[in-house]
């Protein structure tokens, strides 16, 4: 087995791992690759996030819509000097493809991995596709942990040479049904080897506190780093949509009211009466409040024992990350020793 003296006992030596291990409150973000082969889109988004977050998740055909691959976009992100968290779903690849892609991703400099089952293809732009689901997210966590820690492929064969040393993450949906089982499902992911967890969007702090209480009872917060998911709301409509249509997301009425109140100056006018300038001003007022709500949520989440950081999901609104991180007092980001390059 190749020795990595520079890893100093780190699992992967990634910036994200180092930030968390040093006890800093971590900040991750999200970058959705384009539905094209344009590298500049990735570079522009990376520039907006650069220095405000510790690492950025690169989504893997999110909502089952074809986009540039997570590993392809991640390579560009690495070149831009930002650290990616590669998302890998089980929807589009069997265990052979997953393992070979992960070997390639590591060789290209990727160090963090988020293991997901993946949205069903029904939601995307190829609903007539055949899905794979050869393995599930829990099994994927075990698989990549074993590749790193035991140098074995899923079949049990040992391999020689450089092993892919990923900082292995998994997702948690604290408010999805059956809600009583959710802390135990998290326990399964931790048992499988998840080094860090990123949760679904949290807007309902009391509900999340109840979840975290059970997580602490199970001792999971001491075995993994939990990053709570947050995301700025763009409009009251978006808040209502998430409350009513997205499984596993709770949006309290109080937050919907704050968003609605932000647009109260324009509330009396019908759609036709609003000028272009009115709409622009209202959108801007909503966004400002959305960002402020996000900052408030982060400050409350920081006080919950066992929360090691936040994962800011501002897809297609990367500009929001800077004011959120600054507003939450999380800027500048801690400086840790850069991960060693593969030689």
């Amino acid at each position, binding site marked *: 087995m190749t020795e990595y003296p520079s890893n100093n006992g780190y699992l992967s030596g990634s910036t994200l791992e180092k930030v968390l291990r040093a006890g800093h409150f971590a900040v991750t973000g999200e970058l959705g690759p384009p539905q094209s082969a344009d590298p500049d889109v990735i570079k522009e988004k990376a520039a907006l996030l650069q220095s405000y977050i510790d690492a950025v998740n690169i989504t893997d055909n999110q909502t089952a819509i074809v986009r540039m691959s997570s590993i392809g976009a991640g390579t560009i992100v690495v070149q831009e000097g930002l650290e990616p968290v590669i998302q890998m779903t089980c929807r589009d690849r069997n265990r052979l493809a997953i393992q070979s892609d992960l070997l390639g991703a590591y060789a290209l400099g990727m160090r963090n991995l988020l293991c997901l*089952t993946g949205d*069903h293809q029904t939601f995307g732009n190829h609903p007539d596709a055949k899905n794979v689901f*050869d393995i599930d*997210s829990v099994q994927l966590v075990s698989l990549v942990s074993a590749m790193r820690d035991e140098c074995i492929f899923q079949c049990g064969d040992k391999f020689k040479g450089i092993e892919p040393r990923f900082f292995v993450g998994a*997702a948690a949906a604290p408010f999805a049904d059956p809600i009583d089982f959710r802390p*135990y*499902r998290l326990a399964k992911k931790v048992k499988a080897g998840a080094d860090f967890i990123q949760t679904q969007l949290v807007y309902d702090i009391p509900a999340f506190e109840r979840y975290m209480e059970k997580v602490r009872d199970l001792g999971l917060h001491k075995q993994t780093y939990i990053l709570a998911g947050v995301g700025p709301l763009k409009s009251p409509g978006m808040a209502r949509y998430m409350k009513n249509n997205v*499984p*596993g997301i709770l949006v309290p009425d109080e937050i919907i009211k704050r968003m609605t109140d932000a647009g109260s100056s324009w509330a009396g006018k019908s759609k036709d009466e609003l000028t272009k300038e009115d709409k622009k001003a209202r959108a801007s007022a909503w966004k400002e409040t959305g960002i402020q709500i996000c900052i408030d949520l982060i400050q409350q989440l920081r006080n919950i024992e066992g929360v090691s950081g936040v994962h800011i999901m501002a897809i297609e609104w990367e500009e929001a990350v800077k004011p959120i991180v600054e507003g939450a007092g999380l800027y500048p980001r801690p400086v840790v020793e850069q991960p060693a390059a593969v030689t």
Partner: protein
Amino acid sequence: MIVAEQKPLNEQKTLIGGADNVLVVGCGTCVTVCFAGGSREAAITSASLRMATKLDGNGRNVSDVTVQRQCEWEYLDQIADQVKETDIVLSLGCGIGVQAIAEHFPDTWVVPGLNTTFLGLPSEQGVWTERCAACGDCVLGLTGGICPIARCSKSLLNGPCGGSEDGHCEIDPDTDCAWQLIYDRLNSKNKLDLLLELQPPKDWRTSRDGGPRKIIREDLRLVPEEE
């Protein structure tokens, strides 16, 4: 049982093409019970095709017959004469029945009148739902008799995913979340500890992924006597 549904009449008409003599063959087992291809449906299909082709100005001779099981040679032998006389067979059996006819009567062109949909049961009058994926390595002992392979949209072994809401699957409000059903069942039997075990990746070799499957029971085979 094997559950199937009829193809639209227009598609059946296209499938019989220019044949003058058509034999609609029903099956008396699974597809009878799911009202897709029994003797009643064979008679209706036969009459519908007669009428439809007549309306098109090119009426065909369509007759029908139903066998007990299209998937067994001995029952197919009983219709050998009728099959010989026809130009084409429109099978109202499942996909197995269609193939059995093609294999047993190689001189006759056979086309499917049904779409074979799944292995399931009538969950209520007029409603059939899938229950088994025939994966070849039954996991029902771990999941309280509810199959995650056939009934979870993602065939998860360590479910539920984050798309479970109010008992239904995120892909469709009319689809039960299999893992909610499993959770409730194990909870009611005080067996939730079964869900805490990490289930390893499944060996899909026993499923279709291992190639076409075959079972050989030497104890049941008829071995030619040694001379």
